[in-house]
């Protein structure tokens, strides 16, 4: 066993090594750079046999695939829920991801919300994001059990529009994803309630392009040649 220390590359995920240094710098008076926050409105809704999701993150899709190979069964929504929950809880709220998770599996349609600290709720309709209050008000007023697919789409679009128009952090267009048993339909730009009103007829030309000053290509891996060695088989 080697006695020397080996430089092990980090396994991936977040590295908090510089936190102390940053704290010290802030105390000394350095202004911390601000980060880009995307305000958003996401909603989910169960109608009859399925559910809608207007914005989703696929952080665990690779883990779910491995799980499917291992168990030989289709993934369930609660599997994804537990994976996300564990991941977020282990970061103690520092991963600011608030999610609405939904799907249809062998047990039926499910809708869950997952908060940054790792807590989850199971609900028939849910909203998250900066526009969640606006969207929730629409749901609370208009949701009822036994909605049809079209009624559900309409209600979800209305809730997202409420977020778009009433929340400064949300804007532009509405994307909807309808998931039913064995079938998902992604309605990108289902509604575009904020079209570009004034478009210049002359078109737009961008004269100042980025200049390429120098090109240097560094191969990361040297070419490896494999030569067959013919010889005798090893003997015990």
């Amino acid at each position, binding site marked *: 066993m080697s006695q020397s220390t080996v430089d092990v590359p980090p396994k991936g995920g977040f590295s908090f090594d510089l936190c102390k240094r940053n704290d010290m710098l802030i105390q000394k008076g350095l202004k911390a750079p601000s980060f880009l926050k995307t305000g958003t409105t996401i909603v989910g809704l169960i109608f009859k046999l399925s559910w809608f999701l207007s914005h989703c993150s696929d952080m665990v899709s690779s883990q779910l695939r491995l799980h499917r190979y291992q168990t030989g069964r289709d993934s369930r929504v609660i599997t994804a829920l537990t994976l996300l929950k564990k991941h977020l809880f282990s970061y103690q709220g520092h991963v*600011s991801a608030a999610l609405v998770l939904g799907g249809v599996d062998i047990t039926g349609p499910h809708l869950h919300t997952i908060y940054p600290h790792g*807590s989850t709720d199971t*609900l028939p309709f849910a909203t998250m994001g900066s526009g969640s209050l606006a969207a929730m008000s629409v749901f609370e007023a208009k949701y009822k059990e036994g909605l049809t697919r079209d009624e559900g789409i309409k209600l979800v679009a209305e809730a997202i529009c409420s977020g778009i128009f009433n929340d400064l952090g949300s804007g532009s267009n509405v994307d909807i994803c309808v998931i039913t048993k064995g079938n998902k339909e992604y309605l990108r730009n289902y509604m575009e309630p904020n079209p570009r009103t004034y478009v210049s007829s002359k078109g737009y030309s961008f004269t100042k392009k980025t200049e390429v000053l120098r090109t240097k290509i560094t191969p990361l891996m040297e070419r490896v040649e494999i030569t067959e060695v013919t010889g005798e088989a090893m003997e015990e």
Partner: protein
Amino acid sequence: MMDLNLDAPHSMGTTIIGVTYNGGVVLGADSRTSTGMYVANRASDKITQLTSNVYVCRSGSAADSQVVSDYVRYFLHQHTIHLGQPATVKVSANLIRMLAYNNKPATVKVSANLIRMLAYNNKNMLQTGLIVGGWDKYEGGKIYGIPLGGTVVEQPFAIGGSGSSYLYGFFDQAWKENMTKEEAEQLVVKAVSLAIARDGASGGVVRTVIINSEGVTRNFYPGDKLQLWHEELEPQNSLLDILNAAGPEPMAI
């Protein structure tokens, strides 16, 4: 303009209650989960199953309490499989002694002590108060309170959560030994609704779980069907109903 603070950790400012009666236990809770000043879930279920005969009421940080109860459910499941039955006295006694250095055997106690281990060992990181309640064939119905810090206290009744502050005096007066199942459940529902009336962080519906030798019964009491207390108003569907309601009839002379 009130700052809603939607980035605050999900907390269950809560009212949770566990009460023993002659033959079992009744657990009760409200259903409000708040994120700062916003009610994130108005119909949450704070009474979680650990085994077929042991349930836990969760309060405090939603994430911490969910994770703790998930872990304990997993360990208890293994424990039950190892044993082939809800633990016998001898085996559970040894297990408890290993985990908690205690000599009294009990099965509900195993769950409580497992939770205590996790809560106490992670006390600096966890912020959750729990009430464990269940029924086993050796001790009957038992309630264990596990507040912040990880103490395990066996009690004939336990209250927890932010709404419990308003119930200490009520229980001192209303609690009695050997109640019937109906009396115990009515007491729990009354207590939770009293706490909901006074505590802003509790609300929604009242959920109860009754555990006895026959099994588990879950009940649900919607918020607008609860008894009204001092100065509480009748629930209204919409303020527009009040405005549109016809005025009183003119008096006939």
